[in-house]
């Protein structure tokens, strides 16, 4: 009797309604995520496993027969292995170079009072909002002029330029977040410029650095436009092979194989770094201030 009475109290009802709403929202977002990310991945995997002799056509909801045929085809008749090697040599080089370029830039943008700082911060981001093909078309002229087309170093440079905006932006924010007191304390205790960079700045921007590196790395792995214009046919990367299966002779099955080859290492890397970032001391200690 008492229990039923309690159930009818208005605030109990309201709390339950609230809880139901939260559950509904959660379910909704999970559903969206599944449709948005899960379904395409699942379809890609299916397409990549379709048996070449049993095409997957309209009335069938699932492929008739699965096999490694498409995978074998891609590895046999394309330069995918060489492209893999090129892509995964290019990306670390580009990341390293963009790190070296962006560190001083981000330091100045993040910590120094310079006139027109906001303007420079915006300029740095411009390449991101420009259409990739436009940048590529015009940059390729410059690369040609300097003899950097069909040249590995040229390719590294091109990929560096594409990753640089992300790197600079993230690092600038990290540099800005360091309290001046901490730098002053280091100096007060006897640290020279070199020690300040090595022992204070670098470890404290590490989370941002890692984030920037992931951006630069994936940008490089996925970069097609510039690679295509200044690199091919001397150099092939995973995206250029992927694009060769699209276009006029659109082969979805092979494209799916290459897409997976491109995607899987990135996903693994993302989780690895995410895990690494969990030991984020910075927010823990600065949150107290």
């Amino acid at each position: 009797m008492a229990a039923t009475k309690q159930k009818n109290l208005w605030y109990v009802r309201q709390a339950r309604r609230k809880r139901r709403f939260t559950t509904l929202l959660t379910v909704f977002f999970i559903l969206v995520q599944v449709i948005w990310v899960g379904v395409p991945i699942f379809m890609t995997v299916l397409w990549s496993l379709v048996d070449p002799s049993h095409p997957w056509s309209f009335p069938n909801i699932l492929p008739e027969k699965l096999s490694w045929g498409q995978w074998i085809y891609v590895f046999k008749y394309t330069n995918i292995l060489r492209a893999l090697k090129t892509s995964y040599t290019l990306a670390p080089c580009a990341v390293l170079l963009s790190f070296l370029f962006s560190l001083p830039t981000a330091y100045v943008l993040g910590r120094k009072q310079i006139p027109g700082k906001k303007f420079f911060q915006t300029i740095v981001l411009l390449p991101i909002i420009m259409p990739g093909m436009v940048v590529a078309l015009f940059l390729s002229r410059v690369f040609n002029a300097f003899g950097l087309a069909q040249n590995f170093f040229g390719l590294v440079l091109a990929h560096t330029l594409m990753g640089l905006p992300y790197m600079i932006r993230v690092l600038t924010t990290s540099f800005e977040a360091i309290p001046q007191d901490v730098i002053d304390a280091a100096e007060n205790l006897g640290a020279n410029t070199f020690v300040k960079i090595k022992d204070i700045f670098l470890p404290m921007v590490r989370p941002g650095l890692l984030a920037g590196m992931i951006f630069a790395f994936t940008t490089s792995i996925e970069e097609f436009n510039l690679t295509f214009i200044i690199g091919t046919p001397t150099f092939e990367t995973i995206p250029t092979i992927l694009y060769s299966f699209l276009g006029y002779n659109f082969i979805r099955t092979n494209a799916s194989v290459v897409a997976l080859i491109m995607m899987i290492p990135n996903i693994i890397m993302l989780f690895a770094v995410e895990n690494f970032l969990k030991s984020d001391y910075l927010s823990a200690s600065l949150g107290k201030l």
Partner: protein
Amino acid sequence: MVYGTLFSDPGENYKTLDIGREIMSRLILKDLVKKFDNVAAVNHVRLEVEEGEFVTLLGPSGCGKTTTLRTIAGFYQPDEGEIYFNDKLMNNIPPAKRNTSMCFQSYALFPHMNVWDNIAFGLKMRKIPQPEQKKRVAQALEMMSLSGMEKRMPGQLSGGQQQRVALARAIVTQPDILLFDEPLSNLDAKLRVQVRVEIKEMQKRLGITSIYVTHDQDEALAISDRIVVMNQGQIEQVGDPQSIYLHPMTSFVAGFIGLANILSGQVVARKENQVQLELPFGRFWAFAGGLRASVGDTVRFSFRPENVVQYREGGPNKVSVTIQHAIFMGDAIDLFLDAKGTRLRARAESTAKLKPGDLAVFSIDETAFQFLE
């Protein structure tokens, strides 16, 4: 209280401590000027701090106290004037080479280093050999009751513990001068009172010349050998806590430190060591002290609320008042009085029965009058 005292057993700890230095430093500021955008934040500051002395720069925000401190540390270059440690001119010496240690309001611990590495940082910079480093860090840890926390990261410590790490890091390098930039303002009120006593005790034990910046007058009075009251980039008054409180020389000092009634009036009579002052609510006798004013001059003066008390038979300087507000403070009653239109602050014992609207007679102590510039 969660935190133990820094020196639970002073005698015992003192014996094991050789962090203190034999050589101490005098600090001399000669006509220091520091400008930002052509506005003088520090305006011709002259100050000498003796070896081992604890001097507090006290003033409201924007008075130039922190700028002075940061100029001593070397973070700012003075625009004019000189800074000496002993006989050595420090103007062009970079902060890293000055051998000062600064305690920051934010503690400024290195968030990516554990407690041990934080404390050892200054020793590493000074290239102290490893075994000596270990010994000194261990001593500093013990002194600050931080033993056992070496491996913790600053983010895992409470505010009070972070404060101790900051102090340990500051003293372990055996600095010539310790600089404190409002180190207690992030602590809660009770802990603040406790830690300030501990800082003072530590400083006396180690004998390190110290400059302490605060806007908290209670803190300044409690902790200092001498107080430098600053206002608008200039020094208003320098003196030990007692003389600053009891004998303020300017109306700014009188008003900033403690409560004060600041009034002006005409000298109407003079005899021996006393002057009679004409005020809107009566004539009062006051001890002249060093006052040079003669009859007819108008003078400014202050007296503390605790010197305005309820009249007793034979008491001095009677004044009839109406009580406006009576605020019970526990140890006393804070009174706002109306004396013929002039508002006075006064004190009464906490047992007194006073209500707003009551008429009462108070008296002002002759010795309480402090004549201001």
